[in-house]
Structures are given as structure tokens and as C-alpha cells.
């Protein structure tokens, strides 16, 4: 017994909130993506903790799948960042508001 599950959950929650607030507050596209990564990591932490709690390997597999998805997401997202930078010479997310109502 390493640590109570709730402590792990609190840690994961705090990490998630940090990532989420990064996404909410930052205007730099790259930093927003970093926030997304942080959130995904926090979720992975919960999965690993659950896997350890139930002594089932499934949670770890979920983390692996999560990593693969993240890799795909990052590939696309960074390609988009490059593309957007080519268009506006900036990656300030506030500049890309053509979709506003």
C-alpha cells in the first residue's frame, strides 16, 4: 500500500485543473496544446491509479491507447499550428476568430 487512492485523485485533479486553466487563459496556441497534454496526463494518472487499485492491467492499456491518440492529435494539431502560422505569422489564438458569429 503506497498511498490512499484519494490522494492520487487529488493530485490528478490538480494537474487537470492546471492544464485546463492553461487552455483557458493562454492565448499562445502552443501553450494551449501543452495544456491539453497536461490534462491528458492527469487522466492517464487516474487510469494508472485505478489499474493499481483493482490490480487489473486494463487501466494501463487505456493509458497506452491514450498515448497513441495523443500522438495523432499532436501530429495534426502541430501541422495546423504551422499552417496557421504561415497564414498570419502569429500563433496568437485571438487572431484566429474568423469563425465568430
Amino acid at each position, binding site marked *: 500500500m503506497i498511498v490512499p487512492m484519494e490522494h492520487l485523485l487529488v493530485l490528478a485533479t490538480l494537474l487537470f485543473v492546471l492544464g485546463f486553466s492553461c487552455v483557458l487563459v493562454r492565448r499562445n496556441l502552443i501553450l494551449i496544446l501543452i495544456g491539453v497534454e497536461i490534462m491528458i496526463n492527469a487522466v492517464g494518472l487516474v487510469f494508472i491509479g485505478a489499474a493499481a487499485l483493482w490490480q487489473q492491467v486494463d487501466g494501463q492499456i487505456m493509458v497506452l491507447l491514450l498515448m497513441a491518440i495523443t500522438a495523432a492529435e499532436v501530429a495534426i494539431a502541430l501541422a495546423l499550428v504551422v499552417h496557421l502560422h504561415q497564414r498570419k505569422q502569429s500563433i496568437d489564438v485571438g487572431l484566429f*476568430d*474568423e469563425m*465568430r*458569429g
Partner: protein
Amino acid sequence: MATLLVLILLLPLAGGVVNACFGNRLPRPVPVFIATGSVIGSFLACVGSVTAAAGDGYRLTLFTWLQSGNFTADVGLLFDPLAAVMALMVTGVASLIHLYAAGYMEEDPDQTRFFALLNLFVFAMLTIVLADNLLLLFLGWEGVGFCSYGLIGFWYSKKENADAGRKAFIVTRIGDLFFAAALLWLFALFGTIGIEVINGRAGELAGTTTVTLLALLLLLGACGKSAQLPLMTWLPDAMAGPTPVSALIHAATMVTAGVYLLCRLFPLVSLSPLAMAAIALVGVATALYAATCALAQHEIKRVLAYSTMSQVGYMFLAVGLGSVSAAMFHLITHAFFKALLFMTAGCLINLAGHENDIRRMGGMRQRSQAVFWLFSAGLVCLAGAPLTSGFFSKDLILATAFAKGDLFHQGLYGLGVLTAALTSFYCFRLAYLVFGGDFRGEELPHAPHALMLWPLLPLAVLGLGAGLLNLPHLLGGHSWLSGWLAREEDILHLSLDTEYLLVATAVGVFVLGWLAAHLRYRRFREHEPRGLRQFLLQGWNFDALFARVLVRPFRAAGRFCSHGIETGVIEGLLAGCAATCVSWGQRLRTLADGRVNHYLYGLLWGMLLIVGWFLLRAVVS
């Protein structure tokens, strides 16, 4: 026998369809031959099959037309004595009119269409006559309405003609509505629309209000087709059509369809004394009304149109009096002499140089003796000169009314006699104005085609001699028509004195009318139509009355619906909704400001709300 019966219907249909589809590609006289030949063939088939109708008649079910639940409509033919007489008359007169039309329409560029419609009309009329159920009858009913519309407005490039066609169509449609209502009600009551079944089971309804209402609905339907009060305004205008059309449709056949319908359903209709009285009253009122109108008309065909209305009124009177054979007798004789009159009028118009107005005619006898004699033959029949068919048929109706004996029927009789006197008067007015004196017009005469004269001869003979069909006992006859129709109860058994008195009255009013006309119209005097004259000329101003009472409120309602409700309420509502949506959309679009983190805030608070809700529930429980 079945083949012949089917041929009666099929030949005009085939002729019409062939002419409608291929007529314009055929060489000029061929469509005419097809049309005329098909109708003559239909007539011959009628003659050939007439023996089958004796007694109970002949039934033939061709195929099932509609089937839905317990509703079944067959295409079935009922060839009973009534239908046989009617079919013979229709095909016979139609054959002669087709021959006449072949001459009359010779130079018309559109004659293919004309003959196609004419053939289709004959087919539709025969459908009415031969149908064994009400729905098929209704189909024919609408068919004649459509063909009549097409033929009245045949020269549609002139607005008056097209308007007249529309008017006829719309006014008769009002009557059709009532007929359709009656049809549906009958189906609801009896679960069938077979004419014989309905007639057979009509007794179940005796004495109820239902039967009165049904009879009145049927009366209104018949009124529409037969141009009786109050749905009569279309008939004078329908004279805008070609003369053969006026002769065929608006004298001999279609306008009598209402009478035929009432005769067809007589067992049902006769169950309600009130409805019978209403029919008689409508009939005599129309007869009187039309006769007064005919007094003042200037156009030869309008005079005849009003006289038609008047004579159909007599037929209604006969039905209302309960004498089917009298009605059918007058129907047949009237068909002969009125067709004759119309067609001769067509010849006269040609002779006067395409002039309709009798004030510009006169001296026509010098122009054509043959036309003079033919027209005179028709006129004496119409006027009820003794020993002509019109005399016998009209006298039979009046005698039937008189024979009823009570005050109401005596009153009807009195009005009938008055109408007869007026009829005689306007007939001779017409004769004096057309034939007397010198020609008052300017146009050069246009000699009628030979084909326009020869078919009139048999009609003249029939018109003068058709009285033999139902010659009363007084004159040694045996009331053959009543016997054939199995309506022995229609044969009058009056004392000899009374009969003589009635005949004398009839002869008397005829002579009276003649004398009055002789005095008034021996010499032509031009009068400005004013006052009563104008009132009568306009048909008692019924058109204006209808326009004021019906059309204008209807227009106002329509305008209210289109401007007030459609534009104001509905479009206002819709536009209001749309405007509200747009303004809300404009307000809401500020929410979508293209800032990712703002969207994320929305996502977050939504998620928190949901989680909070579940938490709250968990905490509370």
C-alpha cells in the same frame, strides 16, 4: 344485346377520343365523319336494343370501378324503359344535330375540337342515362358539365364567351355540390349507391325528415343542371356557344338531365309531399319567370333559352305533381321542337347576315320559305297550338295539376295557364318580328348550308307528330308512353266535361296569346328598353341581385382572407417569428466570438452543472 348496349356508350367515346388525339392529323372531313358516324351508330345501337328495355329492363355490369371497404362502385348499365326512351331521344336528336353541325361548322378551323367535345358530351349524357349507380351517374353529370363548359366557351378568344363558359361551369357546380351531398348521404343511409337498390328500399324512409332533406338536396342538384330558380342565370349566357351546342345541350339534353335525375329517383323523391310541392313550385315559378323574361329579349337565341327554361319548369312541375310520364312526355316533345327551333334560328341568323337581334330581322320569309315553315312548325309546337306535340304534353301537365283538385294545385294550374298564355304571346311576337314586315338589317344574307336544313325536317315532323306517343283517351289514344314507362297511375281519368273544358282553356290561351301578339307586333315599333321592359330584359335583374347578394360578400370575404388573414395574420405571424428568430440569433451570435477559451468556459460550466447535480442528489440521498 350486351354488345349493342356497350356500343351505345362506346361509340361516342371512341369518336371523341380519336378526334381529340388524332383529329388534327386527319384530313379535313374525316373527323366530322367519325363524329357523326359514331353518334349515328350509337343511335342505331339504341334502336336495336330497345326491345331489351321492355318490362323490367336489362342490367349489365361491366367491371368494378372502385372498391374501398364496403363501398363498391361498378361500371354497370341499367337499360330500363325510362333509360331507353331517354337514350333514344338523346342519340336521335344528337345524330341530327351532328349532321346539322357538320354544315354549320364547315368553315370553322377548330372543328376537330368541336366534334371531339360534342362526342364526349354525348358519351357523358348517355352515361347519365344508362348508369345503374349514382356515382357513375355523377361522373356523367360532371362530364356533361365539363363538355358544356368547353363548348359554351368554344370561341374562347372572345372574353364574353369564355366568361359565359365559366359562369355556366361555376353555377352548375353549386348544384353539383348538393347532388354530391345527397349521394354521400344516400350511401351512408343504404350502404350502396345502386339506383335500383335505393329506389327499392326508399320506402324505409317514408315520412321522415331525412327523405325530405334528401329530396330537396336532389332538387337543388337538378336545379343547377336544369337552370331552374334560383340557379338559372347561366343558361341565357350559355347562348354564346355555337348554335348546335345550344340546340343539343341547352335545349334537348343536358338541361333535361335534372328532370331525368328526379324521374330516376322518383320512388325516393315522391316519399316527401313537402319536397314534391317544392319541386312543383320551383317548376312553375321558373316557368313563369322565364316566360316573362322571354317577352322582352332582343336576341333570338336568348328568347329560345328563356323558353327552354320555362318548358323545363313545366317538366319540374310535372315531376312535382307526381306524373313521371307527363314529365318525360314533355321532355321528349320539347327536345324535338326546341332542337328544331334552335337550329332553325341558326339558319335565320345566317340568313340575316350573322345578326342575332330580332329587331334587325324581319321579312325573313321572303328570304327562305323552307326556314319559315320549319321555324313556324317549331313555334306552334312551343306555343301549344292544338294537335301539335307541345299542345298534348303541356296539356297533360296542366290537366294533371287541375286533376289534383286542391287549392294549391289549382293555383299551380292557374299559373301554368298564365305561363302558357305568355308562351303563346312571345312565340308569336318572335314570329312577327322575324318574318313580318321588311328586312331591317343591313348585312347581306348568307345562305344556309344544305346540311343545315335537311336534318330539320325529321325534327319538324317529330315535333308536330310526337303527340301521338301519349295521345290521351279523349282523342282515341292509349297513353302509350305511360304504359311503356309502367306508369299507368299517371293516366288521367277525368270526366269528359272537364277534359273538354281543359282543352278549351288551352286552345283559348293559345289564341289569346296569338291575338295579343298580332295586335302588338303586326307592325314593328322600336322601343327603348326601359322600366319593366328593361327589368324583364335583364332577367329580373337576377344577375345584379346575385352579384350584390352573393358575389360581392364572397369577394369581400375573399379579400378579407387574402389581405386581412393571409397578409396580416399569417404572414405577420410568420414574419414576426422570423424576425424574432433573427434578432435572437443576432443577439446569440455574440456568444460565438471565435475565442476558443470562451467556448471552453461554456463546456466547463456545463460539466460542472451536471456533476454538481449528481453530487447534490448523492449528498441528499
